[in-house]
């Protein structure tokens, strides 16, 4: 038993840390740490920097542009990248579709799409959830009917993150309508389809979320014609690929590095932020809440390493213990955003100024303006990626044996 990184891992961590320090523009870093989404162009630019370094798709097989890092190194990389405030590579291409394609896709699909994912030449979005199919994803209804060399797609997807920028969408579609009938096996009538967002019949409608921002959308499909060659793997086997994809999605979900940086920033700001008679660092209740979050995060960091060490022995199969990381990690991300609101105090209330483009400066501390929107926005983290209730179901069944 030994809780230390070995010298090689420590050197790796130092190298990664230094790279982010030298290459990440401060403007982007500030935006990410405050919890906002980086702009489209920032994402593309940063992906190109990472791609040039060979780090855009670290977990992919080496032959396809991966780094060959061990699971421990991958986790160190994730933590450092989050703590540095680096934008994460767009997960829909790199973490979700990429592994599905190189595991189940045809050679043509791999050659066509993977290099473009790695450079963010194509922006992908995820077409899984529907208005009637959220946690119960297998009840999805968007239909794809085969006609000659094409599928004709009709239906609706929702909560489609950043579809407004997307060139492509990967969708779960119902290819066997009988599977939805009573007695049918719902999971066995689903296929995995790649659809060009420029195709006629696709409409994207933005959904404004409670933070006031737009990062999710509804996507409507009205007789959308998709070449049959865009089917991934076998017809009606899409559920297997989706399960594989969702298993990968839980990696890195604890977001320890990102929350660490948020809490570090809050502790630093508390020294100078004053909303009462003394700086917030003198407010015992606030400082104890902050410290409690720091302690919980420190524990989560170790829990994450323990799960990782265990998962190594599972040969890459999804580990139900990663659901513990999702639950605790999302709770702590939310706690950090709540603490930021408390720190901003009354200035958390300030919204967008009527006079846009003026040079009057921010109202209240500059960092305070994003605190409430980010707090509102972060309620999402216990809902997406398999809601925390679904994670509890997974643990109840797979670990506790209920």
């Amino acid at each position, binding site marked *: *038993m*030994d*809780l*230390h*990184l*070995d010298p090689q*891992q*420590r050197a790796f961590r130092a190298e990664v840390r230094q790279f982010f320090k030298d290459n990440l523009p401060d403007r982007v870093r500030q935006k990410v740490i405050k919890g906002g989404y980086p702009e489209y162009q920032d994402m593309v630019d940063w992906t190109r920097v990472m791609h040039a370094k060979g780090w855009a798709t670290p977990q992919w097989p080496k032959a396809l542009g991966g780094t060959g890092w061990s699971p*421990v190194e991958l986790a160190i990389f994730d933590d450092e990248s989050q703590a540095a405030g680096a934008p994460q590579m767009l997960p829909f291409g790199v973490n979700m579709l990429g592994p599905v394609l190189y595991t189940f896709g045809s050679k043509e699909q791999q050659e066509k799409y993977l290099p473009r994912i790695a450079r963010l030449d194509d922006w992908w979005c995820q077409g899984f959830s529907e208005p009637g199919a959220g946690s119960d994803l297998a009840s999805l209804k968007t239909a794809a009917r085969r006609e000659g060399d094409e599928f004709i797609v009709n239906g609706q997807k929702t909560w489609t993150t950043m579809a407004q920028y997307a060139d492509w969408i990967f969708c779960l579609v119902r290819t066997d309508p009988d599977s939805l009938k009573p007695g049918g096996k719902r999971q066995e009538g689903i296929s995995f389809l790649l659809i060009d967002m420029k195709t006629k019949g696709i409409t994207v409608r933005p959904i404004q979320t409670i933070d006031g921002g737009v990062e999710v959308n509804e996507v409507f499909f009205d007789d959308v014609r998709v070449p049959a060659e865009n089917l991934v793997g076998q017809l009606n086997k899409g559920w297997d690929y989706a399960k594989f994809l969702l298993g990968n999605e839980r990696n890195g979900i604890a977001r320890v590095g990102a929350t*660490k940086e948020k*809490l*570090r920033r809050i*502790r630093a700001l508390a020294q100078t932020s004053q909303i009462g008679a003394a700086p917030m660092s003198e407010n*015992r209740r606030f*400082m*104890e809440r*902050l*410290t*409690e979050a*720091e*302690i*919980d*995060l*420190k*524990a*989560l*960091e*170790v*829990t994450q*390493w*323990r799960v990782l*060490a*265990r998962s190594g022995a599972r040969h890459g199969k999804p580990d139900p*213990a990663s659901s*513990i990381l999702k*639950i*605790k990690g999302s709770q702590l991300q939310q706690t950090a955003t709540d603490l930021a609101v408390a720190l901003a105090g009354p200035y958390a209330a300030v919204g967008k100024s009527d006079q846009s483009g003026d040079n009057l400066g921010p109202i209240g501390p500059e960092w305070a303006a994003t605190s409430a929107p980010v707090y509102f926005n972060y309620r999402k983290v216990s809902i997406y990626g398999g809601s925390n*209730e679904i994670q*509890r*179901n997974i*643990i*109840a069944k797979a*670990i*506790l*044996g*209920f």
Partner: protein
Amino acid sequence: MDFDLNEDQRLLKDTLVRFFKDNYSFEQRKQAMAMAGGWSQDVWKQLAELGFTGLLAPEAAGGFNGGQVEAMVAMEAMGEALLVEPLFVSALLGGFLLRQCPASAQISQLEAAMVGGTARLAVAFMEAEAPLDGAHVTTSARTEGGKVVLNGAKTLVLHGDSATHIIVSARHAGTPGSHHGIGLYLVEGDAAGLRRRGYATQDGQRAAELNFHETPAHVLNPEAYATIAKAIDFGMACICVEAVGAMSALHAMTVDYLKIRKQFGLPIGAFQVLQHRAVDMLVALEQARSLALVAMFAIDEKDAARRHRTVAAAKVQVARSGKFVGEEAIQLHGGIGMTMEYAAGHYFKRLKMIDVQWGDGDHHLAELARGPNLLEDETLG
């Protein structure tokens, strides 16, 4: 980075777990607690035969020469078994202290007697005015004609009623609170002028109030504040691990109960609301396990302030998790959780008493909140 036990450590764990399984059932524990003195001499003898009374003692004394990992393995098993015999305070806390003191023939003899099971140590640091402050020492140590005598009182001394030897902190210089002038002294259980008032604690352990009146003692370490602080951190890390063992056993028994207890024609574990509560208990348990582990490994940390921060953080986490797991376990058991005839309540009581020992969660949280930032300490260096 490696979270696995080596072969010797696994063997140690298996031996201890099997011993408790075969010889320390809930009923056997209850019988032990009913004996004179509140624990079983037979169990103690068996623990000595297996070598556990000398867990941290050096090989030269016939001991196991264990370190933090061995301490962790033992504490976790003791937590699962709810051991009431004085193994923690004697073999672990006492054993640790002896190894921190300058070597002497007297210590070697004592260690050999501990290995054989004939000597049992207690550790008397706390005083009533400020039990959580290891520097608040008013008990005096006076040297006359080459001999040391102690005067004063110590409180909440675990197993102080039956110990054959007591390690006492006492002051030969300075004023209460100052780190300078505190020594460690060894007092024999039958020493003149030692009065002991024993009592049972809420969780079925034993403790004593001690009074010293011109009581003869031997110097172990004349300038010992740093050692005392380190030993308290070690003790805290130990009971954090013990709490993890207790939580783990309590959680497992709660999950089992949910699967067998039927109401409305169904095992109540079929209800999602109860499943999710059992899951949240598991999350709390695993978080506590993570920091208890880190605390134990922090004991060797050279920077004493950093060591203490790490241990205190674990104590806070264990307090939070222990309260949650304990209270939920009683609630999910329903009425049966309330009875003395069932183990769940005993785990719950032990968890609560671990919380209040050496400062509860709020005590350490308040201290840590003053900074510096815990997250600046690399958890895995």
